């Protein structure tokens, strides 16, 4: 792909306390988010959490009930979509079926730079100024098409393109204007798995070259982790946490964030802090101390669990071979909670056969504790102990 | 996710325009009903008031029922439209299925003939059919009214398109289960043909209830007159004299289909739209 640089536009996207309800359902509850110019923020969450609604409000396609949206230092809350200096890539691409690729990319330029007279079907081309502007626009269209490898397809119609090609056309139509903000609504969800991996790199490249602020909505947490500068996790209309992918993964602020991010899902065990401050799982102390007495949830990633001779009692259930790793499915004896361990394939001969009991150990410093409301709770690792008794 | 309704004030211009167009559209009906309830002298006075000064509806409608065999006409309409529809479905559904799902020699020829038939309007067959029926002495009969329309290439085309969208696997599964070809038609295909059949039925009934051309040609006298012909007879008989009764006759003959439409509106509209879009 060729370079597509421009003056990095000023701005960023600033969302303040946006609320939205549909009928009796509160879809967005006072959401605030700041995206700096040049930053790529992935908005991720389960279906129906409100992320697409938020994006459509930023685009101007929907109106918020309360709150404001600013692009750069302009308050755009009351402005029409066309006046906001944003570009959007739709999940279904929304290409105009009757226009060629080149004409599709040209539309945002033509609508802005030509007045109504110049846009008339046949006579428009003869209006004063139309020809020069037309040349300029054609150049920019060509540049955008080159940046996305579409030069050979400029005369085709969307019906003659593959899904991946259509998506590039949608991207080209978005970047041709060099807007201050990009909005992308699950652009990869209609592509094959193999195409997705390649295309997500290209999207990030385009974003870097264009230099604008990008808000990227997806339900796929691996997309969010691999592509974004920061990840915003949303559920039930509110933002649970906004942080770098590393922090989201290793340092989640909420149990819901911990369980949504990461595949396979993080292991959760019911735990309890006693009056002595010791944290126990099913009666077993786990080497953590200092939490307030009461019920807790202990969460530990599959790659941080190990089978051992002593530790938490568990029973093996099934083994899945993934190629680069093994997944051992088990159940915690005392509570019946399901567990998944991710292990290197070399360990296969040593693993407990299905149905047999074994013990688990984990690195306490990597364990996460959450209070009864789901919020992250701190605890100290008992010095000298990196594993369970 | 839909936007909430815009406030009534903003919607008002659109609704006002539509209401104006609607009133213009309904003018003939409004005046038709109004005149059917007025005595002749009021009608001739050409006043613009809709409500009659002297309520004359009973006399007008009474005259209609007395002078023309309303029941007979409506019955004829029912028999003719029903008979046409029955035979149309009887011929077209199996043929449509055969063209859609079965392989047989001559299939392309048959389908080509169907497409050709779509091009030819029914008026083209009128003359020879008239002569033929006349020679056989079948003029002025239900046969003459129904027979020419029993073949509806449009219906064959419609059902073919519809059956093509039925999954092939359904037929294969039925064959594997041991059904004979005829049994498949009877037990598997027909029950699934219901939506297309209702859509077409509406289209066909509306078209033939309205037909004036053919009944005018083959029918003599009132025994076999369809509602359309009945109104024409009444009008010729009155020759511009008793408008009140004429309007009453018009109301009576129009009412059945209009009432059916108002009761089953969605079906009607969908029927016309789907047959239109497929055709």
């Amino acid at each position, binding site marked *: 792909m060729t370079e597509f640089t421009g003056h990095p536009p000023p701005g960023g996207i600033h969302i303040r306390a946006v609320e939205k309800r549909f009928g009796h359902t509160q879809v967005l509850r006072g959401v605030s988010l700041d995206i700096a110019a040049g930053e790529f923020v992935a908005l991720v969450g389960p279906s129906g959490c409100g992320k697409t609604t938020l994006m459509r409000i930023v685009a101007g396609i929907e109106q918020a009930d309360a709150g404001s949206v600013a692009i750069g230092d302009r308050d755009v809350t009351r402005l029409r979509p066309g006046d906001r200096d944003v570009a959007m890539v739709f999940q279904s691409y929304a290409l105009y*079926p*009757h226009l060629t690729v080149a004409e599709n990319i040209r539309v945002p330029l033509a609508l802005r730079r030509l007045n109504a007279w110049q846009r008339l079907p046949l006579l428009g081309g003869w209006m004063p100024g139309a020809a020069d502007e037309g040349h300029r626009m054609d150049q920019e269209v060509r540049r955008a098409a080159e940046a996305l490898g579409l030069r050979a397809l400029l005369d085709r119609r969307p019906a003659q393109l593959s899904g991946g090609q259509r998506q590039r056309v949608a991207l080209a139509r978005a970047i041709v204007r060099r807007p201050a903000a990009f909005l992308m609504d699950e652009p990869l969800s209609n592509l094959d798995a193999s195409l997705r991996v390649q295309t997500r790199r290209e999207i990030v490249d385009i974003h870097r070259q264009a230099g604008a602020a990008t808000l990227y909505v997806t339900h796929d947490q691996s997309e969010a982790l691999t592509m974004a500068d920061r990840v915003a996790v949303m559920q039930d209309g509110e933002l649970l946490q906004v942080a770098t992918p590393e922090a989201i993964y290793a340092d989640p602020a909420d149990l819901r964030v911990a369980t949504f991010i990461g595949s396979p899902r993080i292991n959760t065990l019911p735990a309890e802090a006693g009056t002595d401050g010791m944290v126990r799982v099913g009666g077993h102390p786990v080497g953590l101390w200092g939490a307030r007495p009461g019920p807790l949830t202990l969460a530990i990633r599959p790659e941080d669990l190990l089978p051992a001779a002593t530790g938490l009692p568990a029973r093996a259930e099934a083994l899945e071979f993934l190629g680069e790793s093994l997944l051992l499915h088990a159940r915690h004896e005392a509570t019946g909670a399901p567990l998944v361990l991710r292990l290197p394939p070399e360990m296969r001969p040593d693993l407990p056969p299905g149905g047999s009991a074994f013990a688990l150990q984990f690195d306490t410093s990597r364990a996460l504790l959450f209070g009864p409301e789901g919020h992250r709770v701190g605890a100290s690792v008992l010095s000298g102990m990196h594993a369970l008794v | 996710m839909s936007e909430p309704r815009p406030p009534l004030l903003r919607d008002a211009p659109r609704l006002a325009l539509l209401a104006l167009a609607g009133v213009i559209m309904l003018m003939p009906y409004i*005046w038709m009903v109004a005149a059917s309830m007025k005595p002749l002298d009021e009608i001739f006075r050409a006043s613009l008031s809709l409500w009659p000064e002297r309520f004359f509806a009973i006399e007008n409608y009474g005259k209609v029922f007395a002078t023309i065999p309303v029941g007979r006409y409506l019955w004829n309409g029912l028999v003719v439209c029903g008979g046409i529809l029955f*035979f149309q479905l009887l011929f077209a559904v199996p043929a449509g*299925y055969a063209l859609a799902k079965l392989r047989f020699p001559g299939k392309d020829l048959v389908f080509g003939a169907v497409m050709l038939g779509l091009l030819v309007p029914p008026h083209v067959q009128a003359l020879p059919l008239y*002569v033929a029926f006349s020679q056989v002495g079948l003029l002025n009969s239900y046969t003459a009214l129904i027979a*020419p329309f029993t073949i509806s290439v449009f219906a064959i085309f419609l059902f073919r398109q519809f059956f093509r969208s039925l999954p092939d696997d359904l037929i294969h599964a039925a064959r594997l289960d041991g059904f004979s070809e005829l049994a498949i038609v009877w037990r598997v295909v027909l029950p699934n043909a219901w939506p297309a059949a209702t859509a077409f039925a509406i289209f066909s009934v509306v078209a033939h209830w309205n037909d004036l051309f053919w009944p005018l040609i083959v029918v003599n006298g009132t025994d076999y007159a369809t509602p359309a012909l009945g109104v*024409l007879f009444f009008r010729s008989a009155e020759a511009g004299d008793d408008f009140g009764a004429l309007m009453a006759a018009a109301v009576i003959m*129009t009412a059945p289909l209009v009432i059916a439409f*108002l009761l089953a509106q969605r079906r009607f509209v969908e029927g016309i739209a789907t047959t239109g879009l497929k055709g």
Partner: protein
Amino acid sequence: MALTRAARAPWGEAAAAWMLSAPAVLAYVLMLALPTLATVLLAFTDFELGATGFRWIGLDNFAEMLSDRGFGISLRNTLIYVGLVTPGSIAGALALALLIEAGLRGRTLFRAVFFLPVVSLTVAMAAAWQYLLHPTIGPLNAMLRLAGLGAPEWLSSSSTVLVSLAAIGIWENLGFNLVLFLAGLTAIPRELYAAAEVDGARSAWDRFRLVTWPMLGPTTLFVLTITMIRAVRVFDTVAVLTQGGPNKASQVLLYTMYEEGFTYFRLGYSAAVTLVFLAIVLAIMWLQTKLLDKRVHYV
């Protein structure tokens, strides 16, 4: 004979197919193919009902048509009628469809109101129109007189009769086209409008040009063809209201065909007129296929 199951299967299928199609094929031949052929042949004879014999006269019927002033008028009137009814009922239906589709309130109600003429008995409504347009006692002229405008003789004057019939024709066809346009409009994906807004389409006209009109292409073409064919087939209103008058001012093709065939019993000549009618219908459909290839279908 030991036919294997596989060998028997296609035979069974073909036999079944022929059995299923047989009634339709028979009806087709009897009621469609043979009569059409007969009409074509008739057009080249001088057959008259009740006459003893008839001769093959070649193109004489067509020659007569060319020199007959009455036929020329009939053809011209039909074309004028089509030329009035087609744009009127299409533009009107499109405008109303856009208005209805633009909001949520009253969709079902207005759709029903405008569709009513389609399910109303044409003959009966023609009688109602006759009353409405009556020069002396009709409400329309009563309103015009009240407004101080003239009171034209709509259906009784040769200068206004065709326009009046065309107005009735528009009234009859509007609802049908409206329903088709509504179906076409609802099929347009909503996201295209959202994309157009983000791209900068500000006014309703921009959205119409960029999304609505192109996406309605196939529907519009279909409506155009259907309307033209329905208009060419005009008969009921002429038969009920004017019988081709005054002075042939509202004579139309099908009425000429009817008169020649069943009033004067000149079946050969009437068949020739029918062929002209058929030729026009075929021309319209050919036009449709030509346009279909090129510009209208994008998927």
